[in-house]
């Protein structure tokens, strides 16, 4: 199964609410993660976002899945600002994943 989400259709041009980011991750992605071959998040039209949103959605997802996240997830249509936010949240999530699974 291949998924693609238009983030501007899901949330508008400003992605702000951490609760909604976490809810989206949990209800739309995590519940079918094992059946998903790849997932693309298209940020075309998104002009701004908060750290609360991006860490709740993509930071948590990267923390949960580690390398599998890196294999399955792609981002497109990112402005330099969006790319910077997402990249930092993913890095933090992957760092925590490694920390949690160190020695396993």
């Amino acid at each position, binding site marked *: 199964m291949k998924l693609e989400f238009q983030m501007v259709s899901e*949330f*508008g*041009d*400003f*992605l*702000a*609410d*951490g*609760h909604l*980011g*976490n809810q989206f*991750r*949990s209800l739309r992605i*995590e519940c079918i993660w094992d059946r998903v071959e790849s997932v*693309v998040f298209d940020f075309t039209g998104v*002009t*701004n976002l*908060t*750290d*609360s*949103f991006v*860490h*709740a959605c993509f*930071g*948590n997802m990267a923390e*949960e899945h580690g390398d599998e996240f*890196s294999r399955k*997830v*792609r*981002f*497109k249509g*990112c402005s*330099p*600002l969006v*790319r*910077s*936010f*997402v*990249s*930092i949240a*993913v*890095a*933090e999530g*992957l760092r925590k994943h490694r920390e949690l699974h160190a020695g396993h």
Partner: protein
Amino acid sequence: MLATGEGHPAIEVDIAAVKFLTPAAIVAILARCNRWKREGRDLSLVGVESCENLGYLQRIDFLTHLGVEIPENFTRRAASGRFVPVQTLNFASGEVDRIASEITRCTLPDANPEDDVYRILQYAAGELLSNAKYHSGGRAYVCAQFFPTRNQVRIAVADDGMGIRGSFVNTSREDEANTPDAAIRLALQPRVSSALLRPNPNPYAGQNHRGVGLSITRILAKEAGGQLTIASEDGWFDELHSTEQARPRPAIFFPGTLVAVSLHRDQIADYAAMHAEAMSQIGMGSIDTPGMFME
């Protein structure tokens, strides 16, 4: 006023001499007065007839939020950057993104959503509202204003909820947040969020907060020539009080949480670079992720 009303069954708020209120004063008074009303205090507004700036208080919906309806002898126009009406948000129905965007658009009507100043104010509004929504357990009031002579933007969010110390109750670091000042200092630490510290019955559910937004907002405000100010109970934080040349702190008792941010428009150059630098200061940086970003 916020301190002297404690313990009195009846409170009169005299607005006769009010000429101007900062965004922080507006939202703090609204949050405090509405909490007094909720507690069953007898709250009345006096000096309305003699208030020289009644129109100003009406235009920002200050009186409406206090439950006072007085006929308006002016025509309401779309918010123009001078008078931005106060917006409210609560846990059940709060739309953080919509309210943050609306307050930004009204405060900076000449900016567009791609401008750095627009995005930094929208970010600060989003983070402060998100915190109020998920940590306060109450109703939040938000207000912003642009001061053209100083080229300064100010935004403030106040809630009538449990306060910062209250949000750390039943968390693993409750003992560290044992005074209002200590609770504020703890909340300002990167990677500290009361939500993260609370036992999570479902570890796979994830968390809505990473304890990043407040720390980054503080750094961005400083980089933009402004500052972050926080009041909760009798706790107080601002940059001047965090230095050795601290000035006398205001006497205040505010049972919820008040957070105010100021930014100088001409000191905001490249928001993306400012944000990345702020993240780096708290030890979070990007990594090389080959192929993760498609063109």
